[in-house]
């Protein structure tokens, strides 16, 4: 269904919150579990979930349609063993302003984090999640920054590497 219904901003302001049930957020359990909004596209809201485990991070996604009160099954589940190896922070989700000083440095970081964006391939109508990461790989590249894009297509629930590109930082 491609019809888009506009939602007046006034209505958003009167009723600004969409309640996401605790069950939705904590399914899978664990104290370290996290859930954040990635972004919204065509009335679908993409959520990412992350759990930190010994030696690896596990993350996965769900799509919610608040207007229909429906959600997808979990998809894109990935066990990431490199995140801690490179000392990366698992920073994700939409923009947020945090006023606390101690979080300031964390907030300022431009590189060295994972970022996800959810969108629609308008030629095929399939939805995709794009993962972006920039890492400084001392062992192989002598301080070169590498940037990697991976694409998850919801049609096959499979992560694919798109490109590896590097740039001399000296």
């Amino acid at each position: 269904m491609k019809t888009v219904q506009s939602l007046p901003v006034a209505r958003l302001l009167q009723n600004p919150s969409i309640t996401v049930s605790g069950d939705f957020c904590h399914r899978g359990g664990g104290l370290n579990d996290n859930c954040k909004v990635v972004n919204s596209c065509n009335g679908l809201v993409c959520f990412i979930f992350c759990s930190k485990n010994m030696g690896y991070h596990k993350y996965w996604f769900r799509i919610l349609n608040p207007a229909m009160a429906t959600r997808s099954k979990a998809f894109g589940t990935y066990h990431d063993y490199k995140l801690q190896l490179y000392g990366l922070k698992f920073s994700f989700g939409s923009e947020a302003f945090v006023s606390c000083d101690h979080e300031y440095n964390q907030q300022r970081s431009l590189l060295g984090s994972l970022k996800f964006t959810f969108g629609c391939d308008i030629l095929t109508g399939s939805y995709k999640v794009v993962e972006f990461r920039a890492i400084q790989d001392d062992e192989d590249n002598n301080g070169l920054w590498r940037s990697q894009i991976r694409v998850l297509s919801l049609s096959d629930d499979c992560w694919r590497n798109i490109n590896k590109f590097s740039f001399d930082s000296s």
Partner: protein
Amino acid sequence: MIVGEILTNFPLIPLSSPFNNGVYLRGTIYWLAIQNYFYPFYDHKSITHVDQFKIVSFDLSTETYMQFWLPFGLDEIPCFQPTRQVLLDRLCFSHDSKQTEFVIWQMKEFGFQESWSQLFRVDYFNLDIHNLPVRRGNPLLLPLCLYENGDTLMLAYRGDDQAVIYNKRENKVKKIRISGKLCRFSYVENLTSTCWN
């Protein structure tokens, strides 16, 4: 018309700060990137030329990258981190100007970098912002949405957990207190299914 240049080998590393993640618009994801910049934080003194700022796009259908220049009217390195966003279904770029004004540009024609045009230029004084934070790395203001025929702009303000609502036509400003974190994303109701096989 100058169309964005197709990148075969991605020579830019997009910013991935909490304020500059990729944004989705019409089948394409856009990032803000700074060429030849590898510091972990945004520091305007370490950027030598405004040409280092680029918009990088990734087409979800063809899975190819392109790069775009920012508006030619950007003539100095903003001391607060500039940001990109989608407002009224168009790609926008916003930045501080000389620590006195906030400027928003809009790419009027999708994919044409010559079509950047200035959407807002407003004095901080008119936004009721009088003391700028000493720490400069993060953006000062984040445009959240534009409504009422593009006359009213809602912004998140870093200083004191406030959202600023500014009406251009009446030059009026209103502040709304927000609690702690402000998570924002634009959302339009739709009947799209959440089942995939």
